[in-house]
């Protein structure tokens, strides 16, 4: 929770999924970092949901992890070009729950997410995730359209 005196965004969490929207969110995060001199934390969550459990799980998770690392690297490169260093995390589990956990652990002041995520086929960071975050997260949320 922000108190009245504390409106500077010290730590900003940017959950990414490799979609266009999350790139946009990252761009916006850069602007804010420049203005407020804050730290960025990048997060990619490998989703572990029921349908994946039933199919060949190991293979699928492996691919997702690889993809996650790749997107994190890409995002990191974008930030490095602008002279920003960021912490990166790769987590596994329920997306919203993991994001919340990181927020608590790292004491973030702001989450920046895209409006929507990847398409329903890839099933990761949907608009639903932004929506759930808006309702349940304990810190401020900036939704980029």
């Amino acid at each position, binding site marked *: 929770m922000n108190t009245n005196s504390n*409106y500077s965004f010290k730590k900003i969490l940017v959950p990414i999924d490799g979609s266009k929207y999350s790139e946009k969110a990252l761009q*916006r995060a850069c602007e804010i970092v420049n203005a407020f001199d804050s730290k960025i934390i990048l997060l990619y969550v490998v989703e572990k949901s029921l349908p994946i459990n039933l199919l060949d799980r190991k293979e699928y998770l492996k691919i997702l992890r690889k993809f996650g690392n790749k997107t994190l690297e890409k995002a990191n490169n974008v930030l490095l070009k602008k002279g920003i260093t960021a912490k990166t995390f790769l987590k596994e589990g329920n997306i919203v729950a993991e994001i919340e956990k990181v927020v608590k652990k790292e004491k973030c002041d702001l989450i920046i997410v895209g409006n929507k995520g990847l398409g329903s086929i890839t099933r990761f960071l949907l608009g639903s995730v932004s929506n759930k975050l*808006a309702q349940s997260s*304990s810190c*401020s949320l900036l939704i980029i*359209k």
Partner: protein
Amino acid sequence: MTIKTKKILVPIDGSKNSIRGLDMAIHIARQSHGTITAMAVKSVPGIYAIHPLGFLDFSSMTEVKKFLNEAKVRAAKKGIQLTAKALVGDPGYDIARFVNNKKNKIDLVVIGARGRSSAKEIFLGSVSNYVLHKSKKPVLIVK
């Protein structure tokens, strides 16, 4: 450094949460040298559009004006220009329409997560939710 948020819309309803949203907006406006538009919507049930007596109830318009003035003073203290706007209608719908109107050139909406208690029912979390879904511009939710 430049942030492209020149015009910030802050819907306020006089609740603590909306004031917090306003403070946040002031903070951002200072960084980006932007201006703030504060907007207060007095909720009127749709039925009053037909019922002539509905229009007689302007008593709480003074209340709306009061906290808009408070907001003005608050922003002026920090040296931010604030334009106030008071409307009568459905809060969620009117805010979203205002945001999406290209003429207004809103770059960011800063909104409190929750407004007044449901007993007073002017601005619920539902309004934040509605604006969040309908607006085509970035939305910052202040908790």
